[in-house]
């Protein structure tokens, strides 16, 4: 481990450290965004037509089981050794977390609330946008957190298909040039990025849901609240 060269980025990466971070965030976050855009209508369909939910879950689960490396390699045939080849699988992976998170979030909206909205003359679209979505925000954000954090760490595998892994390329270089400090730098940077992104999403949730209690911990208070939509249901998504 040569600490002096911790930030000495090999020139074959063609980016500075900050450049790699920018690249990494783009490759990791765009897929999550795309996943959100796809899963919102998909989840709504699953809520509307109940029979659709199990098959959708199965398909996303099976797709998730395809190892990222294999997925990348298969796509090279179609999209070449580009960023897109990394971003498409990450988008698909994010679905397996986001769809169940949104479906469960929207389903936890109490019937009385929906009935009240209907009685106030809300049409289906308005009811969805102004009632169901806001109430589902905590669940959606919980899904986004898991998807974002895993996406940030998965981008690095893209290094194996020809330098499309942003910070992951540093790991590859560390291996080639036998410079462990580069791998350590990449691992730490990615971990910090992931934790920062996670914190940012928590902040977004606090901003979007000012009505939620700030702290829920004990069993008794939790039972009185709406059930915590997030974690359990998410892990159940089989990722």
């Amino acid at each position: 481990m040569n600490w002096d060269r911790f930030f000495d980025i090999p020139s074959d990466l063609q980016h500075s450290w900050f450049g790699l971070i920018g690249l990494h965030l783009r490759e990791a976050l765009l897929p999550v965004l795309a996943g959100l855009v796809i899963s919102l209508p998909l989840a709504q369909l699953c809520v509307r037509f109940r029979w659709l939910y199990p098959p959708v879950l199965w398909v996303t689960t099976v797709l998730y089981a395809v190892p990222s490396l294999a997925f990348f390699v298969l796509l090279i045939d179609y999209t070449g050794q580009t960023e897109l080849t990394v971003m498409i699988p990450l988008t698909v992976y994010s679905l397996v977390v986001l769809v169940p998170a949104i479906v469960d979030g929207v389903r936890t909206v109490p019937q009385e609330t929906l009935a009240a909205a209907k009685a106030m003359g809300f049409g289906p679209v308005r009811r969805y946008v102004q009632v169901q979505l806001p109430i589902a925000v905590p669940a959606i954000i919980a899904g986004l957190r898991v998807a974002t954090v895993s996406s940030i760490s998965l981008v690095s595998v893209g290094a194996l298909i020809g330098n499309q892994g942003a910070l992951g390329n540093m790991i590859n270089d560390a291996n080639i040039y036998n410079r462990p400090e580069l791998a350590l730098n990449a691992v730490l940077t990615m971990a910090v990025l992931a934790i920062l992104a996670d914190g940012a999403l928590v902040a977004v949730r606090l901003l979007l849901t000012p009505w939620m209690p700030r702290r829920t911990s004990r069993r008794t208070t939790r039972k009185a609240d709406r059930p915590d939509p997030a974690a359990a249901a998410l892990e159940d998504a089989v990722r």
Partner: protein
Amino acid sequence: MNLFHFISDFFSNGAHWQGYDGIPTRVGEHIQYTVQALGIAALIALPVGLVTGHYGRGGNALAFIAVAGRALPTFGLLVLMTLLVGFGMVNVMTPLVILAVPPILVTTYEAMQSVDPSPVDAARGMGMGEFGVLFQVEVPAALPLILSGLRSAAIQIVSTATIAAYVALGGLGRYIVDGLYQRNYEKVVGGATLVAGLALVTLAIFWAAGRFAVSPGVRRRA
């Protein structure tokens, strides 16, 4: 379609079924990595999740551990450990265990938290000790969720154990990594198919375990 073409070519080639690089050997290695990593992760995460969930404390600490665990890139850890420690199983097991601990830990904790408190109180009222309450009341009731945590951990390990091949170990990743370097897509596709198949088998095993182990009363409610 050329994807299915690759798949049938790969599996119909007799040479792929024999020897140290044959499908049975590689599948066996992959299963061995998976079972080992899942076993170690479960040994760490299950007791911690059960105890914290039972007492209802430490949820925030667990959530932080889970985020940190997910944030550490598996591939990076693998290369880092190989560079620092040298070749060996420890390098592969450590990242896989770190990958598998968060889902088991968080789900077990959440499962214990979501157990209906009234049967627990009733058990206490009947004079059951903490141990009895935990293992005879809470765990059976929380089992479906606990199993689902183990299942997602297992699926992740199955699909991620492929990277072991990058540091010259075996498993199904061999086909993907070697195929990639040899520009042999048939091999890559075959390897990916095998991994996906193994993941499906894992799902089936957990489904069967759920049918077998979860008490009918709990299953009906879930």
